[in-house]
């Protein structure tokens, strides 16, 4: 990992936490609890499960802090724990048939864009923040789990391709191809909301 991804003062906080400084650990929890909760919500799609995942993630992190090597970011390390906890939750939910993020994916023609229409320059301004959150969340939630996890880590949580691969235990090409499909599927879904008014597909051709 490049050195720029390490916030210097975080390394010190992690070290203090490893030496048993409970305050330092609480600081790390506060720094990342929101992101971990959001990630857990996206993967489990259930508030109760997401809360369990949140607690289990930080309890496990505290317990195994001595195993954190420091060669990846602390955040990547806890994301990996959180992803594992969230996937375990899904597997326990017997009704969920599509739980594995390792499942083989049809790499067929789903990269082909279905609806092609230009959007406004800032289409999000058409909606309130609340409406936007609903639109964006439900679009992500409608992705199949393998795409969803990759997209959330890469484009919502802003992890690098390498960090996403590490957190999900996937190869880099697998992350890239899932990310491409996720982005194109979301683009398709959002076109319904964001396309320029009065601008029919292909009208500009």
């Amino acid at each position, binding site marked *: 990992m490049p050195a720029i991804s390490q916030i210097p003062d975080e390394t010190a906080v992690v070290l203090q936490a490893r030496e048993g400084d409970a305050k330092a650990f609480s600081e790390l929890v506060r720094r990342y609890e929101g992101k971990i909760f959001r990630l857990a919500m996206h993967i489990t799609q259930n508030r109760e499960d997401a809360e369990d995942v949140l607690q289990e993630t930080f309890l496990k992190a505290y317990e195994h802090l001595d195993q954190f090597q420091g060669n990846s970011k602390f955040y990547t390390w806890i994301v990996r724990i959180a992803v594992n906890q969230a996937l375990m939750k899904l597997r326990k939910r017997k009704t969920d048939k599509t739980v594995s993020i390792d499942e083989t994916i049809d790499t067929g023609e789903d990269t082909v864009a279905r609806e*092609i229409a230009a959007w406004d320059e800032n289409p*999000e301004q058409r909606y309130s923040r609340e409406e936007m959150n609903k639109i964006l969340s439900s679009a992500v939630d409608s992705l199949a789990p393998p795409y969803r996890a990759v997209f959330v880590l890469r484009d919502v949580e802003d992890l690098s391709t390498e960090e996403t691969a590490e957190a999900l235990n996937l190869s880099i090409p697998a992350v890239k191809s899932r990310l491409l499909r996720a982005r194109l599927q979301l683009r398709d879904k959002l076109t319904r909301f964001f396309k320029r008014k009065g601008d029919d597909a292909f009208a500009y051709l």
Partner: protein
Amino acid sequence: MTPLLTCKEFLQELTDYLDENVDAEIRARLEQHILECPNCWVVCDTTKKTIRIYKGMEPHPIPADVESRLMEALEKKIAARTK
């Protein structure tokens, strides 16, 4: 002049292109394609906006009750360890 990319080839490179992760030669070919193919221009532009919109998404505010239960569980754990 190198032959034009097909739309399919363009789409395959789209993620790396938007992440600015392609070398200069491929980038030039991709940009040449966009100039000549309005459909791919739209797909590229709207995908770029999709990514931008998601990156700007506010984090889920963690509900106060969820946070206080998390802190409680941690305090218990820490107390048990330092006993």
